[in-house]
């Protein structure tokens, strides 16, 4: 046994797969120990917040000491972020359309440009050929430019609870900075938020755990059914073999996905928990394991030690368990690994069709994918809502298959070089 494990770990492919897989499993286990947020809590008002560090603005004004840094480029950056080169060209276009002579416009001279703009811009003006989209753009641009060159600070005011009058509380200078470490409320959203406003990373970790569980449950069910059927069919032969063979063929030819769709559909959404889905996947995906086990058993059943055991009057169960099972154990482990990764993929597929687990209990990788698709994340360029999910699915399944290939090389001498 020790020797076999040693052999297995000497296989590079297995090792790489194992490390990748354990990295995921460990993340799933360890992450919740440190980050205690509920995965399904809605943390953002507004959806698909981009990844980043969120600093509470109120707290950074109200509760954090402010420091003065004299950085030359601050003003330039501020202006650049509000007024790009394209914006300047667009302003020029507007000014020309409004009758300002082109030679009077220098788009690089910010002060001059802004002054011209302030004097000329009229949000109600209808310029021939200008679309509503353009009009809205100019309106937005105009409000963004407001006070862009001002050098004084911004005033913060609050309502006096007694008089109900707005009173000046503070002035924030343009040279004011806060230290992020000193702001009481900071939230790191490394993968932003999703369509419900949930923290994608926390949800993703939880979903990975749930999907792995679904994969394991489905894999174990499928492998168990496949193993039992394969053992019986291969060892007993005859009518049992025919019957199981028939079932097997039936489940192979009716596309497993179709069957899963039909069953999941007939169960109905409110009955479909994560485990129900796992069971549905398990009971529809056993045939190839059964077929493979059967082939192995057939090659074993006339071996000397099996015959000896038969002659000694051992029961079928005893023979299957002690004389056959140990010989195909490595094979069954490999089949289990494949079934698990297949289970995870199938869950994702069913969820995309809207036949996955009901959405409120737990997140799964498939459901995250499904919601991202419903909210058109791929098309809208919201990569953080779907790409990490694809990566996790691919890594899980890739790592398991690598392990499997590694095992195959160790256990299957034909594949050794």
């Amino acid at each position: 046994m020790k020797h076999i494990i040693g052999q297995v770990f000497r296989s590079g492919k297995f090792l790489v797969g194992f490390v990748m897989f354990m990295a995921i499993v460990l993340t799933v286990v360890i992450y919740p120990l440190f980050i205690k947020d509920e995965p399904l809590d809605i943390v953002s008002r507004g959806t698909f917040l981009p990844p980043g560090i969120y600093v509470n603005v109120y707290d950074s004004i109200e509760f954090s000491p402010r420091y003065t840094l004299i950085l030359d480029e601050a003003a330039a950056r501020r202006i650049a972020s509000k007024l790009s080169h394209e914006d300047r060209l667009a302003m020029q276009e507007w000014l020309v359309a409004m009758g300002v002579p082109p030679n009077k416009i220098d788009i690089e001279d910010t002060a001059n440009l802004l002054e011209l703009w302030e004097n000329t811009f009229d949000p109600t003006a209808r310029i021939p050929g200008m679309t509503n989209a353009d009009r809205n753009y100019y309106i937005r641009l105009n409000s963004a430019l407001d006070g862009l060159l001002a050098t004084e600070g911004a005033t913060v005011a609050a309502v006096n609870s007694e008089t109900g009058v707005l009173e000046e509380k503070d002035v924030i200078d343009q040279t004011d900075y806060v230290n992020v470490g000193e702001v009481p409320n900071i939230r790191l959203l490394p993968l932003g938020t999703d369509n419900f406003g949930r923290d994608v990373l926390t949800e993703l970790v939880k979903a990975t755990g749930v999907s792995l569980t679904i994969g394991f449950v489905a894999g174990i069910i499928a492998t168990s059914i496949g193993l039992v059927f394969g053992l019986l069919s291969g060892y007993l032969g005859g009518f049992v073999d025919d019957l199981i063979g028939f079932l097997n063929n039936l489940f192979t030819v009716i596309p497993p996905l179709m069957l899963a769709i039909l069953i999941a559909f007939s169960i109905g959404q409110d009955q479909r928990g994560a485990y129900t889905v796992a069971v549905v996947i398990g009971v529809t995906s056993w045939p190839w394991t059964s077929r493979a086990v059967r082939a192995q058993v057939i090659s074993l059943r006339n071996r000397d030690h099996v015959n000896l055991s038969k002659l000694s009057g051992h029961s079928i169960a005893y023979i299957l368990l002690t004389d056959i099972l140990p010989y195909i154990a490595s094979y069954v482990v490999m089949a289990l690994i494949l079934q698990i990764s297949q289970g995870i993929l199938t869950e994702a597929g069913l969820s995309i069709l809207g036949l996955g687990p009901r959405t409120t209990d737990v997140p799964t990788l498939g459901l995250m994918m499904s919601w991202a698709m419903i909210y058109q994340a791929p098309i809208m360029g919201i990569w953080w809502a779907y790409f990490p999910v694809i990566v996790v699915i691919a890594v899980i399944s890739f790592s398991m298959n690598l392990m499997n290939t590694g095992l195959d090389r160790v256990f299957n001498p034909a594949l050794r070089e």
Partner: protein
Amino acid sequence: MKLNRFTIVALLLVMLITGTTSPSVAQDTLPRNETLYFNGQQWGSVVGWNPYSNSNNNAMAIAQQDNARVLMFETPYLYNMLDGQVYPLLADGPYTWNDSRTELTFSINPAAHWSDDTPVTAEDVAYTWATHVKYNTPTAAANVDYIADIVATDPQTVVIQAKLNDAGVTVNPLLVQAYVSTNYVVQKAWTQVLEERVGGDATALLADPAEDVVASGPYYKFFADDSKVVLIRDDNYWGQDASMWGKLPAPKYLAHTIFKDNAAGTTALQAGEVDISQQFNSNVQSFWLENGLPISTYLPEAPYGIGASLPTAFFNLNSYGLDNAVVRRAIAIAVDYPTIIANAMTNQSATFDQVPRSLMNPTAGEQALYDHDAVAELQWAGNDIETANAILDEAGIVDSDGDGWRELDGQKLTYIATCPNGWSDWQAAIEVVAAAGKEIGIDITTNFPEWSVYQTVVTKSDAPLPEGYDIFMMWSDGAGPTQPWSRIRKMLSSEFNGMTSNWNGNWGGYSNPAADELIQAIPQETDPAALKEMYTELVRIYLTDIPSFTLMYRPQSFHTVNESVWTNFPFDGDGTNPPVPPLDLMDGWSVAGLYNLVLVNP
């Protein structure tokens, strides 16, 4: 699908060798500069063009509703959701009631004619109604309780005789006058051809695809398959008469692409393959803010459109504890509506700060119908956990056994909030409702059954709702000529309780004689001041009893336009008078917008 299998299979061979052939120019392309592309109205292919049947799955041609679609078939009047008025289309001038309000009279525009050039007459209107009644169409089923008959007194004049109750008073004048802006006029001659063809069989009449139908609208059917529906402009359209529009609508073709889901529609809108999109595009602002696309909405900022309907969560008033108004109120005021609006609607709804809750939709016309100050005390904007906890404590509904959840008379308050699976914005909203429960010590979990299950359960009003339907979402009426009366009726009237199949409303089983009385009286009332008082009273009852609570405002139809090809779509403050509503230029008065469109690059 008109493409035969052999063509497709043959194509394959070509596809595998891709890239060598240079295709010749064909005539079967819709010139981009003459075509206005839609999406979001039609899901699935068209079955027929029969204006008598409402099961043609033909959204572009047949939608007889509050804002009837009048591209192919026309109604006598057009309803404008923005100002609540109706404007004549086939009719000539406004309709009039007789003094006893038993007969409504209007005349037909003498310029109006059918696509076969014969004039539209009052007889067509009368015969259309007669046919509906004779073959018991859905239109007849919906109106026979209110309309006794429609007759043509002369070729131009139509009289609608209202059905009278035992007291000799019109049953419901509001529904009678709604008929003229919600139902099509169908040509008598063609109807007779149809009747002949089906041999008087009602089922066959409704099932007829009516490929030969005669219409009076500015567009006529051109092409339909799985991928699109195309209408072509009738250049002989009567509406170019000076008495109506005075010109033809700008696009020669109206093409509606049929997408399988919103994602495909969004992609096409971004690519400029759709000009007007009537689908929910989440975070619509990122089209222009992040992607810099020439896409815009009716309003430049959130909520981007005009809300018209009130998606509402109903309380099952038979559930334990929900018969207690304090519990209902606590839940309703604790819900974080700003999050619902920001997340489920991605801000495409006015907030309850902007438009305080009532039974009215956010349009100016309806908002003017009640006294805001009179009910201001009762309105809430949500997320008021403190008050919710306070009123529960005050009512003695506290957590007595220390499990973190409140009990009423020793029984834990635990509810299931439900909405159909796959209705993403509703699901997101109901999640927020459930989250509110946690804040106030009431255990609310969510459940999303399939729509087929959901609707069966919810619409069965002759028995108590089963477990799992304590709080559930349903829709409300949008904007229309009978609003807000009809919406209020469906939210509050007890007349629907006990129906085996209740598709109308009040699914929670609310019953209040005072409200019923007001709902009965409003259609008969003509004095605006009295109406305002009655509506205000209904709002007061609603906000006090809280049999249901609105979660968001939702537009009649979404209106997102891509101005790569066409421009001059309606926008807030575009100066049109009467204002063109943002209804995809298909429905009711919004068709006026089709006459304003211009090309970006003529």
